[in-house]
């Protein structure tokens, strides 16, 4: 005899009763730790490979990827063009003091931005913001910043950071599913590329050490080298927790490092070099 009713089937046969949250947290931890391990491993490999790749490859990358922020056309602004030229000649003088491999060419660009900033990117391009020029008062201080960025390029840090950043992005997409992080990527995509090139703390320390050497060779003393960092310290209103995520060594540490080097040279009475007049001009022209 056929019963009139559908059977009442117990719940939970076609679904699992495991605790999803615990599982996800465990898996997330496992994935994050293996990503970290992978990044450490790969950046170690990159450290070995990067200095051996021809610089020409790096330059050709910049031609088809948009690495450079759109700097406003400095051509029609003669003050800015002169300042850029002054920056380039300074970087040329500095690079003569170091053993820069023959195939590396440097190009300094002036970036019209109020925030004091300078960074090096792929293909030997260095960007210096007008805000930075405004805060610095001697050539020595500017030379310290420039030498630091030149050191980044000498050690091929941009290409290493590119590899690491791309890997990190790729893994992030793999985990979160490309569809969903795709929208995130679109939001941050256009600002994302340059920030991918954030260097590790060890890279910054390496560059600081190299910059100090260059300055010593070029000027014979280190006076004024810490000016930029001292100004930075004054303008800092950062929370303590943020500095944990910062890639640069703490400003305090850098000042301490440079001061230690200054006292080691014992040439304290040397006078500072004045900024190139073209750089002074651009400050007033942009005001």
């Amino acid at each position, binding site marked *: 005899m056929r019963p*009139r009713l*559908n059977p009442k089937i117990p*719940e939970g046969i076609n*679904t699992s009763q495991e605790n999803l949250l615990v599982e996800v947290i465990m898996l997330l931890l496992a*994935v994050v730790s293996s990503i970290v391990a992978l990044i450490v491993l790969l950046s170690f490999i990159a450290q070995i490979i990067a200095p051996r790749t021809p610089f020409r490859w790096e330059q050709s990358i910049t031609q088809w990827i948009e690495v450079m922020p759109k700097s406003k056309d400095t051509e029609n602004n003669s003050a800015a063009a002169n300042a850029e030229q002054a920056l380039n000649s300074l970087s040329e003088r500095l690079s003569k003091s170091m053993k820069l491999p023959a195939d590396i060419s440097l190009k300094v660009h002036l970036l019209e931005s109020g925030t004091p900033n300078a960074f090096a990117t792929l293909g030997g391009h260095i960007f210096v913001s007008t805000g930075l020029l405004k805060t610095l008062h001697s050539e020595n201080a500017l030379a310290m910043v420039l030498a630091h960025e030149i050191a980044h390029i000498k050690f091929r840090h941009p290409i290493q950071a590119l590899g690491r950043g791309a890997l990190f992005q790729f893994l992030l997409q793999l985990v979160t*599913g490309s*569809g969903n992080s795709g929208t*995130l990527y679109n939001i*941050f995509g256009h600002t994302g590329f340059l*920030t991918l090139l954030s260097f590790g703390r060890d890279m910054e320390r390496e560059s600081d050490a190299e910059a100090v050497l260059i300055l010593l060779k070029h000027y014979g003393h280190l006076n004024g080298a810490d000016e930029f960092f001292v100004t930075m310290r004054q303008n800092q209103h950062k929370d303590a927790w943020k500095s944990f995520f910062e890639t640069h060594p703490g400003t305090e540490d850098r000042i301490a490092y440079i001061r230690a080097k200054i006292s080691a040279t014992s040439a304290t009475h040397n006078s500072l070099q004045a900024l190139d007049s073209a750089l002074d001009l651009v400050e007033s022209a942009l005001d």
Partner: protein
Amino acid sequence: MESLIQLGIFVTLMVLGFIFGRRAESKHYKSIISREDRYRHILITNEKLPAPEFISHDSGMVTGNVVISVDYFKVVAAGLKSLVGGRLTAYESLLDRARREALLRMQENAEELGALAIINTKFETSRISGNAGKGLGSVEVLAYGTALTPRC
């Protein structure tokens, strides 16, 4: 800083997905169970031939479909799980809900016709992509069968 914001958004979406997804799921299950009780008198089988007692009934096709979407938390959970392999529990409950909902809607349809039984029931499952790339966006489950209505 950008990556920190990205991480923040990721965590927020996860938490939102977890809370709301969980709430929606338990609510849906509650409603499924109560409606299953209500429509228990419409017997569903997938036999091709009607049982002898229904031999002189009218027949007509009934369908029920539902499109159900997955929350962010489950996408991440399943994405992580598929790295190591095994059962994707996050999607199992989703499909279980979808299938039972489709059956219920088919029963609702049958009730409108005054049917007493549905035979030759079949399922069709399809993934509706477009709103998601690699992960599961939403699935459609269609249940269809032949309803047997007493001849008047």
